[in-house]
């Protein structure tokens, strides 16, 4: 019973990372119609920033979190300007460009961190929160889930209550109609990738003290993000959040009771199943070509 409750709690905490990591992918795909394969590497760069600045050079943790967000956002904006913008009419071209970026970012990470074993960051928040004497949550995880929820709330406010947020949603619904209303699709693309990359950087920064950091960690992130995106419905942000929670719970349970690999295999199979049975996912709507 204790293990059950603990697993549920762990799953919920995990869902924060999943949602943060997936939302950038959903946002960029929704607005620009391009699959950013390097999205996992953006998360990886965020984690490396923490390792390099905080663990190696002693810069305070919270400061490096902001730094990670800034660096990753800058990379995202550069990708938009030099790759996705020239490739506007060619989604496959954009995807292939992002694969090129993926390789480059991995090499940069290898150069900064060197080869060898995965890096560890000592948790800046020590101690464990004990609820009802059975459920144990390290403060680091409490902090992570708190910041994740806060960031998602800010994003939700931005998208539903501000003019710029409306414009972002308008472009992701119908690019041409939005352009006809006088919305600059280029500017909105920059906003989308900026916000998406910032979320990815934050996810990496929060994950850093809780996971093994290596240049290939983006691979698992992108698989998770794909599953969440597809199951939630391509282009749907609420769908992505719901799918993050469901998938995180599912993955944590299967990992706890069976193994991590089986959890990922079943996740991928669920995703294929969703693609066959209901390609629009939980919350998506049919996109007219």
């Amino acid at each position: 019973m204790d293990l059950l409750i603990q697993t549920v709690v762990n799953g919920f905490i995990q869902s924060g990372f999943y949602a943060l990591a997936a939302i950038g992918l959903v946002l960029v795909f929704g607005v620009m119609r391009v699959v950013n394969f390097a999205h996992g590497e953006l998360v990886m760069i965020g984690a490396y920033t923490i390792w390099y600045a905080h663990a190696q050079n002693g810069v305070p943790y919270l400061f490096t979190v902001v730094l990670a967000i800034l660096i990753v956002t800058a990379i995202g904006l550069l990708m938009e300007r030099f790759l996705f913008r020239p490739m506007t009419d060619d989604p496959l071209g954009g995807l292939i460009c992002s694969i090129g970026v993926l390789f480059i970012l991995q090499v940069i990470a290898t150069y900064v961190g060197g080869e060898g074993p995965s890096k560890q960051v000592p948790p800046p928040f020590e101690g464990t929160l004990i609820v009802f004497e059975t459920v144990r949550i390290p403060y680091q995880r409490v902090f992570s889930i708190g910041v994740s929820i806060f960031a998602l709330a800010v994003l939700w406010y931005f998208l539903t209550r501000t003019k710029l947020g409306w414009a972002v949603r308008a472009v992701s619904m119908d690019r041409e109609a939005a352009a006809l209303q006088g919305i600059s699709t280029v500017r909105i693309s920059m906003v989308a990738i900026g916000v998406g990359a910032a979320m990815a950087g934050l996810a990496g920064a929060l994950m850093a003290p809780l996971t093994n950091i290596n240049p290939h960690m983006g691979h698992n992130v992108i698989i998770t993000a794909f599953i969440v995106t597809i199951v939630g419905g391509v282009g749907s942000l609420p769908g992505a959040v719901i799918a993050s929670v469901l998938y995180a719970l599912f993955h944590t349970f299967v990992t706890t009771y069976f193994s991590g690999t089986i959890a990922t295999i079943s996740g991928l199979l669920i995703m294929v199943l969703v693609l066959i049975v209901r390609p629009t996912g939980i919350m998506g709507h049919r996109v007219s070509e």
Partner: protein
Amino acid sequence: MNNRGKLNLSTLLLLAGLFAFLLILPHFLKYHQQDFLIFLTINVLVVVSYRLVTLTGEWSLIHAVMMGVGAYTSALLSKNFDISFWITLPMAGVVAGAMALLLSYPLFRMTQFYFLIGSFAAGEAIRLCWIQFIKPFGGTGGTSAIPSPELMNIDFLEPIPYFYLVLVIVSICVYLLYRIEKSRIGLTLHAVHWKGVLAESVGVNTWNYRALAFVAGSLFVGIAGALKVHYIGTVAPKQFDIGFMVFILIWVIVGGYRTFYGAILGAVVLSVLDEVLRGVDQLRPAIYGATLIFFILYLPGGLESIPHKIKKMYQQKRSRAT
């Protein structure tokens, strides 16, 4: 395309010259360069078979895993059941093809972006099964001590005999793939890509043709996988991961996917470049990445379009001069 793929005399002479060159080439190479030549020849079959899949306009991300399906089939059959290489090699193709047929039912309900992601997911699920189920597949480390082919008294552990074996099999497969592309089927595949609705309206079952291309492409890449692991002696999930899939994509795109020889050109040029860069191992992926971006942005037609471009520039210059 009106001569329907029949080779004319000058092409035949060129091919004969190429073969003569390839026959004597390994004798002038160092040991690791001979290894490289074998892998390069196998990769030619990989890209050409991938080209067949992409002819219908769908870019799949499962081709590397299909190669793995063939590789595992052949490796496990020959190791555990002591079946001869000459039987397991075609078996590798058949099993990979059958797997593709099975997967085509769910996967071809999707198109474009969804197909890309779906094929990626299906491939990754298969690959993770090789890691998870240690019993037949051997887990992350894979399976080693795969027997090498036996034929008379030839020692296929040596690179040169194995290279000749690979050269013969790859040549046959590439020729078959060439004939398929230039046949009526191949022309229909082109039609499905460029004029899908029109093709359907004249009675072409596009679903069948897409599946046919996918199954045939997987069959040939399964053979390529078997050829590879019987030489290395080890088969592991890492060999067929998304990284290798990306290399296939890069070869096809950098070479150019409009003509049959474009993909081969890409594989050969980039592999040789890769071999030259051996000294800077850490940097290699970044150079690959940058090359890919450069080609997509500035030379979307690939290497094979360079001669056309030069010709065009030359003609423009001349017309301006007159």
